[in-house]
């Protein structure tokens, strides 16, 4: 198991390194042909082809940075296949309702034809229930399609049973995004270690600037980074299945320490993720814990002043201070019902191939700043995205988010404990013990 994960780690890092190199090369000289040319010409639809209606469910909606890029990729397909209508069904990934929607659909015979969703533990339910088809054979049959992907990106999309059920578009990383200008204005160093972080927090909060914009309820990223840097990648990867890793609670102690120093917005308890993002985007906050997808949503001047660093190691933790959260966490699934429906099967597969073609991947990656799953050059990325690739390439480890390692309910409990811990109603030890109890209840 350990061997496999270290293989994965190596390949992710290699991947990020490739991209850094690619971006570095292409960053200055803008490619003249816009990048859209030179890709496979979509098969011309036969005359009088019977009409086909497909539903594609994804998170490329609302405020998602890649919304328009995704829609235009769909439009390209319908332009070359006039007999096809596509229902672009979307929901924001910011809220938990999205998971519920997908699982309800998958469980109640209302599967979308193509589903863009998380890979890994989140998908286990419908994958094991046989609601989606393994794509191994399809990939083997179409060398051109398979060849479009970077092999490691496909490897990372494997479920535990060894099959590939989802084909990836872009990867992601998470980190501590920092507004360099605010730091410079206050004569602060980048928060590369705990002391620098706490110094910055103290100085900024004395000056009336929100040091670190996080919400306490949707505290996913805060918990992810605190626990990862406290318990290290191995401790984090263990989840809470067996005995409790004593380092986990140091993450919660660190959150409390930051709170006591005034690190979080005054109204952190009642804001949601998008409001926290707002504070950062408006320049009211100096730091935010977010993922690569958030970059596209910030105001341009703030984005240009932003860089990203790994969350520093918390005091007493075993993390290296150079561990990050990331991976290829999402991809397109093909539902079993569509696969068995002769009228839809070929069109749905053609659409999936189109959406994951190098040209489409390039488009999406350009829009959302993620790591493309194909070997394409992404130009015009802001500096912070390049900083992000560089951070990921140099990282000592890349782990998938903590909520993929514990049961949903356990993660809900961990979230609820954040506020109790900083208020002193619970000790960090009690918080982790509580979560462990919930985790045990969730295992037969």
């Amino acid at each position, binding site marked *: 198991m350990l061997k496999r994960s270290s293989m994965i780690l190596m390949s992710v890092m290699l991947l990020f390194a490739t991209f850094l190199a690619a971006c570095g090369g292409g960053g200055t000289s803008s490619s003249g042909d816009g990048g859209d040319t030179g890709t496979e010409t979509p098969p011309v639809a036969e005359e009088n082809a019977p009409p086909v209606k497909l539903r594609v469910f994804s998170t490329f909606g609302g405020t998602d940075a890649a919304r328009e890029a995704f829609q235009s990729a769909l439009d390209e397909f319908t332009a070359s296949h006039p007999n096809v209508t596509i229902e672009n069904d979307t929901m924001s990934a910011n809220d938990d309702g999205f998971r519920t929607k997908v699982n309800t659909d*998958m469980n109640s015979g209302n599967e979308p034809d193509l589903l863009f969703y998380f890979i890994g533990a989140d998908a286990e339910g419908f994958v*094991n*229930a046989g609601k989606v088809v393994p794509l191994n054979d399809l990939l083997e049959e179409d060398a051109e399609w398979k060849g479009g992907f970077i092999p490691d990106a496909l490897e990372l999309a494997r479920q535990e049973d060894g099959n590939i059920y989802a084909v990836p578009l872009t990867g992601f990383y998470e980190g501590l995004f920092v507004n360099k200008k605010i730091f410079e204005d206050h004569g602060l160093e980048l928060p590369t270690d705990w002391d620098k972080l706490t110094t910055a927090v103290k100085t900024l909060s004395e000056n009336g600037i929100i040091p670190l914009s996080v919400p306490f*309820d949707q505290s996913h990223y805060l918990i992810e980074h605190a626990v990862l840097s406290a318990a290290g990648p191995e401790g984090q990867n263990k989840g809470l299945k067996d005995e409790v890793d004593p380092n986990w609670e140091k993450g919660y102690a660190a959150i409390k320490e930051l709170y006591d120093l005034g690190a979080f917005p005054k109204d952190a308890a*009642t804001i949601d993720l998008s409001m926290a993002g*707002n504070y950062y985007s408006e320049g009211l906050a100096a730091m935010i814990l977010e993922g690569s997808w958030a970059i596209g949503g910030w105001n341009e001047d703030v984005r240009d002043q932003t860089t990203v660093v790994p969350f520093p190691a918390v005091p007493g933790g075993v993390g290296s201070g150079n561990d990050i959260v990331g991976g290829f966490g999402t991809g397109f699934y093909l539902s079993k019902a569509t696969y068995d429906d002769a009228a839809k099967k070929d069109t749905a597969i053609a659409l999936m191939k189109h959406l994951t073609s190098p040209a489409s991947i390039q488009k999406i990656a350009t829009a959302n700043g993620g790591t493309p799953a194909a070997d394409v050059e992404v130009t015009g990325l802001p500096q912070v995205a390049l900083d992000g690739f560089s951070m990921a390439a140099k990282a000592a480890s890349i782990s998938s988010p903590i909520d993929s390692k514990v049961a*949903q309910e356990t993660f809900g409990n961990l979230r609820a404990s954040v506020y109790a811990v900083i208020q002193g109603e619970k000790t960090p030890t009690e918080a982790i013990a509580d979560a462990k109890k919930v985790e045990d*209840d969730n295992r037969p």
Partner: protein
Amino acid sequence: MKGDRKYIWMFLLPAAVIMAIFLYYPFFKSLYLSFYRTTGFFDKRFVGWNNYERLFSDELLGAATLNTLEVMLYVLVFQVGIALVLAVLVDSIRKGKDFYRTVFFFPVVISGTAISLLFVLFYNYNFGLLNNLLAQFNIEKVLWLDQGNALKAISIPTVWHYVGFYFILFLTAMSKIPSDYYEAAKLEGISGLKKTTMLTIPLIMSDIKVVITLAITGTLKVFEFVWVITRGQNGTEVLGTYMYKKAMVDQNFGYGSAVAIYMVIFGVVLALVANRLLKRDEITY
């Protein structure tokens, strides 16, 4: 009468079908699920009374119950109270009744989520309307949604949203009172406040009872205001949001269903108690 039976069935059927699908089926399904331990959508096992035992040791559920009762108190006092006062006022004017009726009823039509988003922008600490107003007068910003205020802050839109509905119910009830009562009162020289408290309110008591029952059961369903404005933080978790969190966010449908059953029983008990307390002879005109 016998020939009518066919029509009775025919007219009842659509409503009965809709009720069965959207009310009774989900209810019994919840009852069924509440005896299971579920993880996600694809895995469940029978656990007997386990979920119900958990209800009694769940501190968060206790807190949510108390918070719901607090909101219920505000709703009963202010929502029903303000609706009654408005109805009395509008009932006693001669011109512009229709105008006020429309204006007061209007908030009911707006979706609760939209109102909540509006109030998010009122209360927000950094951008909010209220704090911007205070800043104009150089007053220190206030954290409107802190531990002490949050539940009250949420109760304001909750109360405001449905005042109009109860107002219409009261107004309709008042218009049904025959005018000879008022003429008699006029001859006796009774007017103003005395007329309202001694005549109007006793005469619409059965409607007040209905409204109170509606308000109690309605408060148990409060969800969107809490969910959007505070996400259940800072001591604002109510039963509706707690159930949603357990069922949908944690994907523990078994326990979520048990909470739902608890809410139903709790609501029925409260409504029965309220009815008992307000017991009076029915008035017929």
